């Protein structure tokens, strides 16, 4: 009974502690800037609690989650794919062109666009994989550099009049026909992107592939101990290329909810930064499918809720959202560690207690 209660306490202590710490830091920041933190948090909670906010959070979490999965695949085999950023943008522009320009019924266009995104993402990431495996170029540099190269490639494509044109002062690809828009449902006036099912499928696929399949086993093994994996018959070079390709393939899908559900075209303005956000999602979610989903939702929710801070009386404190995200990220992991250490000490203490009791029962 008491042990059970303790277990519950330890399970809840970390997330709760993280939350309290993050809120405290943010509250302090608000206080310092002369705003009433309670008013601010109330604004956030009220605004963040609307149906619209919740649905928006889900929609916005989709690309974050997929990006997290892409990064996590790399992490699982000790590769740091910092290039999801470049991979998804390049994939998105190609997918936009494929979806808009190739003939065919709507659903086929959606499939072709996603397939194109997967292929482009995988190919672009493979460059880093190949360089790492066969030229010993560290993938961190390679992907940082490929992100830089991507900006040039996207610019070239955007300026190529076969695939993009200027409309309303913006460079943009042709619009996908309405039939090729991914369906959505409306709740209380807000649209929920049904692409959420694709994201769920990606999460499930990721979980089973990594944890249940032979390929996932080898992938994890080479991440945990490359030497042992090699001795177990895993070719580390090929594993690097495969992992990067897989990570890139998923990365390619990051832009799809935006393309298929929101923008329906690729413009010079297409959302940036999702690749970097994915690193945070993957890490906070501990590279577990459910964890990353929770992290993505949390990040999206905080972004959304902090928009409340643009209204009086706490106007101009919206950065609290970013501060909350960063602090929560750190606080979450710190709290996990603290709780883990506490639990460990507690276990030792209990063991000692048991030993003493046992000993007392045995007559000398």
């Amino acid at each position: 009974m008491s042990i059970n209660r303790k277990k519950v306490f330890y399970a809840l202590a970390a997330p709760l502690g993280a939350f309290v710490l993050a809120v405290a830091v943010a509250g302090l920041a608000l206080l310092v800037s002369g705003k009433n933190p309670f008013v601010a948090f109330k604004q956030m909670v009220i605004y963040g609690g609307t149906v619209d906010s919740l649905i928006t959070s889900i929609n916005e979490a989709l690309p974050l989650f997929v990006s997290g999965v892409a990064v996590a695949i790399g992490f699982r085999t000790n590769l740091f794919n910092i290039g999801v950023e470049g991979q998804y943008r390049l994939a998105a522009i190609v997918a936009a062109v494929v979806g808009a320009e190739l003939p065919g019924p709507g659903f086929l266009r959606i499939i072709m666009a996603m397939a194109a995104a997967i292929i482009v993402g995988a190919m672009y990431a493979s460059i880093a994989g190949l360089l790492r495996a066969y030229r010993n170029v560290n993938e961190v540099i390679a992907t940082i550099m490929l992100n830089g190269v991507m900006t040039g490639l996207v610019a070239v494509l955007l300026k190529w009049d076969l695939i993009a044109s200027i409309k309303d002062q913006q460079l943009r690809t042709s619009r996908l026909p309405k039939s090729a828009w991914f369906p959505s449902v409306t709740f209380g006036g807000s649209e929920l992107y049904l692409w959420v099912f694709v994201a769920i499928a990606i999460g499930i696929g990721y979980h089973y592939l990594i944890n249940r399949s032979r390929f996932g086993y080898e992938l994890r093994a080479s991440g945990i101990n490359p030497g042992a994996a090699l001795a177990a018959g895993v070719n580390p070079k090929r594993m690097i290329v495969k992992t990067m390709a897989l990570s890139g393939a998923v990365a390619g899908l990051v832009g799809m909810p935006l393309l298929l559900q929101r923008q329906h075209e690729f413009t010079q303005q297409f959302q940036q930064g999702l690749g970097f956000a994915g690193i945070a999602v993957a890490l906070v979610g501990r590279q577990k499918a459910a964890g990353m989903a929770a992290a993505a939702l949390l990040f999206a929710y905080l972004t959304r809720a902090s928009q409340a801070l643009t209204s009086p009386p706490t106007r101009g404190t919206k950065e609290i959202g970013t501060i909350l995200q960063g602090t929560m990220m750190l606080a979450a992991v710190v709290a996990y560690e603290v709780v883990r250490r506490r639990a460990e000490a507690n276990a030792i203490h209990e063991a000692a207690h048991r030993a003493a009791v046992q000993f007392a029962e045995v007559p000398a």
Partner: protein
Amino acid sequence: MSTTYVDLADPKANWWTTMSRSRQIMLMFFGAFLVLSLARAVSGENDLTSEFTVTNTIALTLPILLAGLGGLLSERAGIVNIGLEGMMILGTWGAGFFGYHYGPWGALIGGALAGAVGGLVHAVATVTFGVDHVISGTAINLLAFGWARFLSASLFKGRGSGSETNSPGFDTSKGMPTWRMPGFADDGWLARIEFKHWPIVSDLAGISRGLLGSWKVYELVAVAVVPLVAWLVWKTKFGLRLRSSGEKPSAADSLGVNVVVVRYLAVIASGALAGVGGALLVLRNNGAYSEGQTNSRGYLGLAALIFGNWKPTGVLAGATLFGFLDTLQLTASTAVRGLYLLGVVGCLIGSIVFFRRKNPRVGRSLAAICAALLVFYVSGIDMNDDLVKTLPYLGTLLVLAVFSRRLRPPAASGQPWRKGQIT
């Protein structure tokens, strides 16, 4: 999650690997110079080695260099620092704030202090709480952005030209002298030689004018960090403890070294250096912090660190390569044509090296690239400006791919470790 970098390639012995390090470096500089000079002479793109290019390369290199050296201190002590970008942002902010109140020297010190605060947070998270280094770094990048804007709204808005995203400017030249070398800085005899555009001699003149001509004092301070870090890390007691904390913390711990303190100091210093890198951006431009100013230079510092195999001279080489290509890209799009020629020569040398190393597959592919570049060069097709802009990235990647080396990060870098742990 922790990232380790594993070696895969195992190059066999050859004349190069058996040479002493200092000779390798000398030879490399000499080779690079010869190739550059040749490329300039043949292509007529005088900007490849002009005083102007060198001067601006220095300006664009230093922030990346300092971030990279900051990363070096941290990773040599075993803490991966992907928060360099955030610490650099804090540095720009601190430089903006302290510079406004206390002038250019204040900016320099303020940048260091603000960066150090970022380092301290990273140290607390990773060393004390054993948080995954990449998580902590990523969080710091987020936090730095958030705090910088948040604080700007309070402290900059309404002061002079300050706002949520900009600090009020200050005069960067006040009390910050420029050091000039007579005969180099002015249009003296060396300049005349440079403008003759003779092979080798003029190149030498241009480069030495750029290198020795004139320096802002804060730039000298920044450059002095390279030997300082090298000395600190390889010659001092603290340096040995720092390196051992990054190679095998349990060994250091078992000999009574306080790994925790060493790591704290290293990571805080790391933040300070990245912060100074940010301060240079403020000082070099217009004396004001401005959001987005760092533009991923912290990540580039990380790349330079890896490029440079976790060594100061290597970081210098990596940062300089990037700074040089970035300068060319910005100031001399046409000189990029000269770079084709450089690529031709580079690939040619590379292919000869690989043929001699009995690796004809790589040799052949390099020869093919060489031929393709040559055709491209001779055909005179102008490069699309958008692609020119990718030169620093492509160039760095190419150099790495051709001259890939055996990289060896500090063995314990990124690994979780707690005091008393034996592994």
